[in-house]
């Protein structure tokens, strides 16, 4: 139908009377110039199916939003009450703490394990393999509960020669607070997964890079840190961030070793104010959404950083694109061009 409404304008633009017809053509097609040029213009194919699909999606989305906003089940008033309560923020802080510490521990352990696995020494190789096998197999919750009961199994931890004298020993009860148990448990588990992510990244770097670095006489440590790792990170970052997001959510398990993180606080409050369980769960959900959004934004910029040299020109960031869009067509195109150029020569 819309095709039909377009027809007179098109007929006018290609018509033999340039006088009034060209004016109609400018209005309809939006291009000035000789009528001959307009006749050459390609009219894009109409896609009614796409419009119908878009309409369906928009209606369903609007229904969902309407449901979320108006259903009394969600109790948005109570959500507002709880969202910034000190007790919730306290839990959020614990979540952040556990996440940060175990992510550092997990990544460091993962790099060491990956290097062991890639080493030519079979003892290092198989130790790493065994570790990864065990810790990828044991469910995190089981591992955490094991550690929680660890002090019952081993009264003291000592450092020394196996079956021989010990140099130092720690009392288990002093060593392991709830936070330590949580961080060590999640860190041990995380290291096993991070190791495979790092190993995949290192393997993705072309063998020629190792050879070129060796042929220049570069020391082994330098080779890994400055040549292989920066290239490996391009493959590591997306996979590791995926892992990190899983980690943030799995910190909610520390509740079971009596550490009150975001989820723990919400659960505890929920048992005292049983009418508020749903809004409290929504509070936790929204906070997790915020955390993971922040990580995703960081991921975008980190990936962009490591794309240097891999792309001929870096695409503009969303901010640059937004600014370009606001400034409008021609100016925007110039900004896009400039961004591409500076990205390319930086």
């Amino acid at each position, binding site marked *: 139908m819309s095709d039909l409404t377009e027809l007179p304008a098109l007929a006018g633009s290609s018509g033999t009377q340039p006088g009034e017809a060209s004016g109609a053509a400018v209005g309809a097609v939006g291009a000035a110039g000789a009528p001959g040029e307009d006749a050459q213009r390609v009219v894009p194919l109409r896609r009614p199916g796409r419009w119908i699909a878009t309409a369906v999606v928009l209606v369903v989305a609007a229904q969902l939003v309407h449901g979320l906003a108006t259903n009394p089940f969600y109790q948005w008033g109570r959500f507002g009450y709880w969202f910034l309560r000190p007790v919730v923020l306290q839990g959020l802080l614990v979540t952040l703490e556990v996440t940060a510490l175990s992510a550092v521990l997990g990544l460091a352990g993962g790099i060491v394990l990956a290097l062991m696995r890639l080493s030519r020494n079979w003892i290092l190789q198989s130790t790493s393999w065994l570790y990864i096998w065990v810790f990828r197999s044991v469910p995190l919750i089981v591992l955490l509960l094991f550690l929680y009961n660890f002090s019952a199994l081993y009264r003291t931890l000592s450092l020394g020669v196996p079956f021989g004298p010990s140099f130092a020993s720690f009392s288990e009860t002093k060593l392991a607070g709830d936070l330590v148990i949580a961080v060590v448990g999640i860190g041990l588990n995380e290291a096993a997964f991070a190791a495979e992510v790092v190993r995949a990244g290192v393997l993705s770097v072309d063998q020629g*890079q190792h050879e070129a670095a060796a042929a*220049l*006489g570069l020391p082994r440590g330098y080779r890994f840190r400055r040549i292989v790792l920066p290239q490996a990170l391009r493959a590591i970052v997306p996979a590791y961030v995926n892992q990190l997001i899983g980690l943030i959510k799995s910190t909610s398990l520390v509740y079971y070793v009596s550490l009150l993180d975001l989820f723990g606080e919400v659960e505890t409050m929920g048992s005292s104010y049983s009418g508020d369980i749903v809004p409290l769960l929504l509070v936790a959900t929204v906070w997790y959404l915020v955390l993971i959004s922040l990580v995703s934004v960081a991921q975008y910029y980190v990936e962009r950083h490591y794309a*240097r*040299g891999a792309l001929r020109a870096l695409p503009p960031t969303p901010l640059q694109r937004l600014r370009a869009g606001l400034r409008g067509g021609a100016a925007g195109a110039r900004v896009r061009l400039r961004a591409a150029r500076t990205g390319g*020569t930086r």
Partner: protein
Amino acid sequence: MSTAEAAEAGVVDAAAEAAGIEVRGAHKWFGARHVLDGVSLTVRPGEVAVVIGPSGSGKSTLLRAVNHLEKLDAGQVLVNGEPVGVRPHRGRLKELTERAILRQRRRIGFVFQNFNLFPHLTALENVAAAPVANGLLDRAAAEERARELLARVGLAGREDAYPRQLSGGQQQRVAIARALAQNPGVILLDEPTSALDPELVGEVLGVLKDLAASGTTLIIVTHEVGFAREVADTVVFLDGGRVLEQGPPSQVIDAPAHPRTREFLARVL
């Protein structure tokens, strides 16, 4: 590159003492395959040796053995009279520590068929990285030298480009500058023009001719027989892991004695 630039750069490089290369009875097996079957070869300081031969004849393996990227099963390589990768010990050859091998490699430049530039570093950083990392020059001096070397290979003004922003010929010229950065006594080039479009081969061969004229010892594995005739002091024909023929190009290329050499040259010329 202008000749004035080349002459000036040549002065810079005069400091690099050209070294001789000697390969003695080199043997290498890959599983059951005998890739090098008793190869012996002498390249005097400042000479250019060109190794030709059909694919799979052991050319690359021979070249990679010279800087110990490939370990020999028997025989040895001497650069500047010093055994590479091994030391004589009670009548046998003992492998050197990794640190010692890395130190030897700094004196032996290597240029790969696929360039193998570091894609996350700019052209300048690619050239300046090794002298800084190996403590030969401080950063400022290394970057100054890198600029000179890039100018010498005709890439002044492209210092800040990443490898992927350069053409194949330009990338290979950066790789040659990188190999020169540590002032090596010899440079080994493994099919430096095989990965290039025909129109880009010339620019790399031009740089190599200047390099040969500057008195650096070179071993070049190549299929460019015309180029070999022009720059080589010695041409080595390798087939089935053995040196079938070696001598000046006028002899090996223009009047080959061995039927296998004649057959090979008939196919590539």
